[in-house]
């Protein structure tokens, strides 16, 4: 029998997708991007620059293995293998450990490029809320980075911090955002300096009789507040978009929008694949560059 204490509330759903209507055999350029993050890994495959397949899964203890698993899962049932990819770019924390990558590019450049693709050329500020760091990126209309700021000093304000809270409160991670918005009055934020302090503060609040929803609201608010200070340092320029796993947490997004007094752009694409998508777009640009250098 599974008890609540044995459940892993932080564990989010892994998924893959491919466009069954597209025919990879007719594509001229097949490129891929792999984003091996500290918490999750994504693989994206493009056919002539159009999104064809992707997968998102947890990063294991071995980066090369995680990269391979993510790519193989993205390619599942497509008829393609890693050998069919003409150029692959690795990005993220484990980018130098992607065995089948032709080049490694930082996730900052990849999120800017991917964000430009997903949200359109009007996007100027991209907030990437990753597993263990948070990046504020300014970019131009081509998705080229013009300024960036990163805070990877601690887990507060990151996906991993949110997982810790989901587990502490016994709330599935996917439900955290909505539950945190279901409060009559916005509680004061918990400590946003350190997730370990925030966790012990939350435990005290629960003992004082706070509801789980109120504690979650307090943590989402703290996370938004922490990220806002990062964004304000760099300066938020419209349009604004959020990438990374936390973009799916409405509790944080709504509070961020409230504090910044700006609406985040929405996209039909999955915000968590932005890094890998940007990497695949870089890969396509490199194939084209190579072709120009060596005429066919």
């Amino acid at each position, binding site marked *: 029998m599974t008890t609540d204490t044995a459940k892993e509330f932080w564990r989010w759903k892994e998924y893959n997708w491919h466009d069954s209507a597209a025919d990879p055999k007719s594509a001229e350029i097949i490129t891929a991007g792999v984003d091996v993050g500290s918490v999750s890994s994504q693989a994206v495959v493009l056919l002539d620059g159009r999104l064809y397949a992707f997968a998102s899964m947890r990063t294991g203890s071995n980066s090369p293995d995680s990269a391979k698993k993510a790519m193989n899962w993205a390619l599942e049932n497509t008829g393609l293998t890693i050998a069919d990819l003409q150029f692959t770019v690795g990005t993220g924390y484990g980018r130098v450990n992607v065995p089948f990558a032709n080049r490694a*590019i930082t996730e*900052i450049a990849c999120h800017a490029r991917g964000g430009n693709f997903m949200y359109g050329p009007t996007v100027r500020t991209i907030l990437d809320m990753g597993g263990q760091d948070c990046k504020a990126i300014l970019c131009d209309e081509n998705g080229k980075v*013009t300024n960036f700021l990163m*805070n990877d*000093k601690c887990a507060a304000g990151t996906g991993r911090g949110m997982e810790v809270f989901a587990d502490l409160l016994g709330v599935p991670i996917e439900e955290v955002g909505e539950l945190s918005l279901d409060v009559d009055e916005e509680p004061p934020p918990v400590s946003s300096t350190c997730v370990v302090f925030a966790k012990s503060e939350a435990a005290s609040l629960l003992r004082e009789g706070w509801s789980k929803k109120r504690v979650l609201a307090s943590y989402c608010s703290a996370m938004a507040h922490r990220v806002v200070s990062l964004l304000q*340092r760099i300066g938020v320029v419209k349009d604004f978009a959020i990438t990374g796993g936390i973009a799916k947490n409405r509790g944080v997004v709504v509070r961020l929008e409230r504090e910044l007094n700006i609406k985040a752009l929405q996209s039909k694409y999955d915000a968590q694949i932005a890094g890998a998508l940007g990497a695949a777009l870089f890969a396509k640009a490199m194939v084209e560059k190579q072709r120009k250098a060596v005429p066919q």
Partner: protein
Amino acid sequence: MKANYGYTDGSGEFYITIDTDLCVKCSEHWCVDACPVGLFEIIVDDYDDEVAAIKDDHRKKLKYDCAPCKPVSGRPPLPCVQACTLCAITHSW
């Protein structure tokens, strides 16, 4: 691009900013030799430009690494800032 290397913690903001649009015009790279701690290195960035960057292992301890050049009183000009003839390097603290 303005590349900000550093962090914010409970004691303040510690960032070194390198304007790579200016940095790319320099071929001398005086900053690398000017820093007594050896914080700077020359890298090829994501856009294939050869620019200065802060070494990875120093990025989370800039407050301490830069301390010798930043006495509490009578602060002299910073060697890295002085060495950069294109004024591409700035410190936030």
